[in-house]
């Protein structure tokens, strides 16, 4: 399980080790953009931007879709940073739930003890 997480982390971090690629993700996190839009925004050749987009796409952080002659980029399915945040939220949900469960269990335990004492009398 650790290896599984590691492989995913490696692909994502390799993709994210570059400031331009992080910028691209930030940009398409706000609004979908075509590769030529991105190339222009980041002051880069189309070929250079295509390479960055390809790396992000391989890591699953970005997906592209060709509509007509324009290839549009949007955030990909594997948003690992989101997944980590989601699992933390999921943990907090269960933490709150288990805290309440523990209170209920505590009340039942005390009730049982009281009844045991009564029985002994």
């Amino acid at each position, binding site marked *: 399980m650790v290896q599984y997480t590691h492989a995913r982390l490696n692909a994502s*971090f390799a993709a994210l080790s570059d400031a331009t690629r992080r910028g691209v993700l930030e940009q398409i996190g706000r609004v979908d953009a075509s590769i030529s839009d991105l190339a222009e925004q980041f002051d880069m050749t189309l070929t250079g931007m295509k390479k960055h987009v390809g790396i992000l796409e391989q890591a699953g952080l970005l997906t592209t879709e060709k509509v007509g002659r324009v290839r549009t980029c949007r955030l990909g*399915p594997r948003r690992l*940073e989101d997944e980590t*945040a989601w*699992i933390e939220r999921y*943990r907090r*949900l269960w933490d709150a739930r288990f805290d309440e469960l*523990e209170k*209920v269990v505590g009340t039942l335990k005390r009730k049982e003890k009281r009844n045991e004492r009564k029985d002994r009398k």
Partner: protein
Amino acid sequence: MNARTASEPTPMKNRTTSERKSERELVVTRTINGPARIVFEAWTKPELFKQWWVPKSFGLTLLSCDMDVRPGGKYRLVFKHGGAEPMAFYGRYTDVTPPSRLVWTNEEGGEDGSVTTVTFEEQGDKTLVVLTELYPSKEALDAAIASGSTSGDMSETFEQLEELIATLQ
């Protein structure tokens, strides 16, 4: 009677852990102060279950709770969140083994619904609870995660990511 006696020290903060254990599985663990028998009871008696399943901090109201806890028995929970339409969660119990194991299906998600397995393992006067949500496919779990995270604020996420990357360099 004293609410807390010497044999019942102030409970340590029992940490809840969560992990995506594989492509299809989420696992949550927690140690609860109390015997498995009582933890199981609190999980399977509706009047007790209602007291803890929806903590106030969730901002949800549990409108109804029907549980027929036996193999093949159905359950149905209906929640309300603010002014939104009520949401129903339902399925059936497939394994009910007191006080150590409980398995149920989550059918509101259709074919992509998960199967939840909870095991209760007594350790001294405590019980280790391990809850596993097994999804039918990697895609189903990815979708569950994505649907719960789309409302997130990306700027905060990126800030956290930047920090994380900084520590790795």
